[in-house]
């Protein structure tokens, strides 16, 4: 006999409700993954600890200075930012074993063998008046130099670019081409001139 069907629920408004929720989330959240240059700051030196390890050989260190008008001094000569990367690469590789460029040290890397690792350290100094944009541009060039060297090393030894290597291989490359960028204690660059 005529059993009454329950009337179907009107679901057309669920879409509206969902849209409302969607709009809410669109407004209150941010997309954007955080991108940036990662760095490790040196710890504050202990007062009791004597400054012994600062006797790095002169040839092993390159000082990159940025002054208040964003000009760059690498080593002892002014340099344009576009040439900075090549200069750093030359400094770190020292292809001709120049006595003024950093010495290399045979280092045994686990799982790979002995590699000549450069002892070069890049020291970055800036003035209080340096603009942040210029500072980060220089940081970027330094990282780029190291990244390119790592890429070259990876291609020469593993036949693949650095980003395509496995994690262990990346660790090996990182040890072979270390990223030694030190951000010096702040001082007034202009005061020295």
């Amino acid at each position, binding site marked *: 006999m005529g059993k009454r069907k329950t009337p179907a629920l009107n679901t057309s408004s669920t879409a509206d409700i969902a849209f409302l929720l969607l709009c809410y989330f669109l407004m209150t*959240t*941010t997309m954007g*993954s955080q991108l940036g240059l990662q760095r490790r700051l040196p710890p504050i030196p202990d007062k009791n600890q004597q400054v012994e390890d600062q006797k790095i050989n002169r040839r092993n260190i390159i000082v990159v200075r940025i002054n208040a008008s964003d000009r760059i001094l690498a080593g002892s000569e002014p340099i344009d930012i576009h040439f900075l990367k090549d200069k750093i690469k030359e400094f770190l590789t020292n292809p001709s074993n120049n006595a003024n460029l950093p010495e290399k040290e045979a280092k045994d890397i686990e799982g790979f063998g002995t590699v000549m690792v450069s002892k070069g350290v890049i020291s970055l100094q800036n003035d209080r008046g340096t603009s942040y944009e210029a500072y*980060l*541009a220089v940081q*970027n060039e330094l990282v780029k130099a190291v990244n390119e060297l790592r890429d070259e090393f990876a291609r020469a030894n593993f036949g693949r670019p650095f980003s395509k290597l496995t994690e262990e291989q990346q660790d090996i490359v990182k040890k072979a081409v270390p990223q030694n960028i030190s951000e010096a204690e702040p001082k007034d660059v202009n005061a020295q001139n």
Partner: protein
Amino acid sequence: MSKFGGSNNKKEVPGITSGSLSDIVFMLLFFFMVTTQMRETENKVQVVVPEASEVVKLERKDLCSYINIGTPIKSLQSQYGTDARIQLNDSFKTKEDIRDFVASERESLNEGDRPLMTVAIRADKDVRMGIVTDVKQELRRCSALKIMYSARRPGDE
């Protein structure tokens, strides 16, 4: 009854079912809920981060705390001037407050995650390095040594 019938048994065009519309919208909703993160703080300083080609992605977003540095936004300039300022959480702070800020951020993390805490410095590209250096020194003093300079890929935005 003829097939091409009289007016009383005209077939109606079936209406389009909008039942699945809500499913589609819910799918969109879930997509946005998963991929985005809540905007915790309101920006009180204008920050246009500089460009850098070698940027890397931050692996653990939840372990990151932000320090914004820049000039106050237009509506607050009459009150705070146009000098670059530090914003922590929701208010303008001085560099002396960074210590407390880092301590409280560290407190809010799990025991095991604390060494991995990263401080992202989101500074405007026109900011002078003096203030950034002060912040860095302060971070060193409270041994928050993992930092990240926020930047964007060239060509974005």
